């Protein structure tokens, strides 16, 4: 059952025709799996190409002479240092340096940027951007686009067959190949792949070409989750939240050194004082012993039975072929190889702290 305010994907009819099973996510009715099932969808993405409808995510265009200044205030980012077509993973932080959302900013021109934000936070993000835009000479446009991701080692070949050349585009770069299109070489599976925002009619044409290619399979949200977890990537709302700062989350690599030291972004003071004293907890990968998955919410204990942290996402990794999880532990325990125990329905399952990612990234960096 879906409530009246549940949002539906523009291409929902295509997913119904493909036999998708739907479920609620971040206010949207989303395809969770297709008839092949989550295991096959996951493995197909790692071996060939998975096609994801991620139109629940939101694209914002920011333009105007103040767009660099706006972004430098909104995010711990040096937007002016981005080359044209370069993308950067960054955040919106609150005044306590908690992560309101994680997003990708791509520079499209001297005074024009694309921001890709998460579904669940799109409204809050838009409000924040519009509020800031009043202080700067900048304009925020929420774009009405279908947003597709095609991920996996054969994604480029499938796009090429569909008439879209990707050759010179490298990982974390994006551009506008056609009017009202935005395409970046990025994704959230750990594989080489692309994200494409485009008008609905164009999207229907592109999907029709892609799904007749045997290398391409529709992949739902369930496999998207197991893919990103194996790749060690955070899901906002679980692994990162407004209560978690980028230092605790182990995401300081996304914040340039100069920005850390002197940036005037929201949350800068709080983040500096967290860095000064060191975060009390850290995000780690967790590998449970045996085959039983350890899931979000499970409490973690040290060998003496003292509380040590908690799991924020967990499940089974079809490519890793064992359960995989992520969570937060006290900083003193956050060392690869350290042994902890997760409470799963009263049973203490041994878990090893494991380096992330669980499956190696295969981005096309050049």
């Amino acid at each position, binding site marked *: 059952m879906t409530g009246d305010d549940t949002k539906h994907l523009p291409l929902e009819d295509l997913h119904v025709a493909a036999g998708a099973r739907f479920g609620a996510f971040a206010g949207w009715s989303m395809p*969770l*799996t297709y008839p092949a*099932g*989550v*295991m096959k969808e*996951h493995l197909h993405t790692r071996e060939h190409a998975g096609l994801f409808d991620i139109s629940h995510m939101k694209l914002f265009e920011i333009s105007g002479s103040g767009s660099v200044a706006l972004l430098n205030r909104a995010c711990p980012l040096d937007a002016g240092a981005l080359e044209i077509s370069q993308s950067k993973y960054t955040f919106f932080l609150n005044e306590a340096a908690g992560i309101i959302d994680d997003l990708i900013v791509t520079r499209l021109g001297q005074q024009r940027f694309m921001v890709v934000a998460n579904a669940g936070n799109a409204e809050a993000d838009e409000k924040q951007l519009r509020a800031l835009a009043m202080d700067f000479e900048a304009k925020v446009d929420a774009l009405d686009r279908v947003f597709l991701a095609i991920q996996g080692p054969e994604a480029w070949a499938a796009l090429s067959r569909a008439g879209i050349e990707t050759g010179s585009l490298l990982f974390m770069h994006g551009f506008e190949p056609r009017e009202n299109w935005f395409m970046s070489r990025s994704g959230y599976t750990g594989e080489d792949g692309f994200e494409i925002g485009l008008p609905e009619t164009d999207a229907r044409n592109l999907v029709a070409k892609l799904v007749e290619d045997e290398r391409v399979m529709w992949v739902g949200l*369930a*496999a998207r*989750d*197991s893919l990103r977890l194996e790749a060690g990537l955070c899901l906002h709302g679980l692994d990162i939240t407004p209560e978690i700062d980028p230092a605790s989350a182990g995401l300081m690599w996304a914040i340039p050194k100069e920005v850390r030291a002197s940036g005037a972004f929201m949350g800068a003071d709080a983040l500096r004082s967290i860095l000064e004293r060191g975060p009390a907890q850290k995000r780690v990968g967790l590998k449970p012993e045996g*085959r*039983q*998955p350890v*899931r979000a919410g499970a409490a973690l204990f040290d060998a003496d039975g003292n509380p040590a942290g908690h799991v924020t996402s967990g*499940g*089974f990794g*079809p490519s890793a072929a064992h*359960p995989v999880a992520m969570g937060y532990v006290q900083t003193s325990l956050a060392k690869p190889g350290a042994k902890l125990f997760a409470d799963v*329905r009263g049973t203490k399952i041994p878990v090893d702290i494991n380096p992330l990612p669980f499956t190696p990234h295969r981005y096309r960096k050049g």
Partner: protein
Amino acid sequence: MAKTYFTEDHEWLRVEGGVATVGITDYAQEQLGDLVFVELPELGKKLVKGDTAVVVESVKAASDVYAPVDGEVTEANTSLSSDPSLVNSAATSDGWLWKMRLADESQLEGLLDEAAYKAHIG
């Protein structure tokens, strides 16, 4: 001759000589998707109707399987420890979950037959 009963919670049980073999229906395994782990009950465990007897875990989620009647666990399907996907491929045969000696056979009267179960899942 064994008789098969069903519950509204999508378990089946085949009763022979006071012992029930219990599993989940084909409809249930399809809803759950690929199973990766089955947490089986201990032998001798006394189950009361409605207790969680088994937890089946798919890639995405853990789901409880309830005891359809009262009784004592006499056997668990240990082949699921190495191959939980048997529940997906053979839910009503090799993918059975556990066997239990019934405490009160009259409880079977409250369960569904195959036609009623089919009507229940529509």
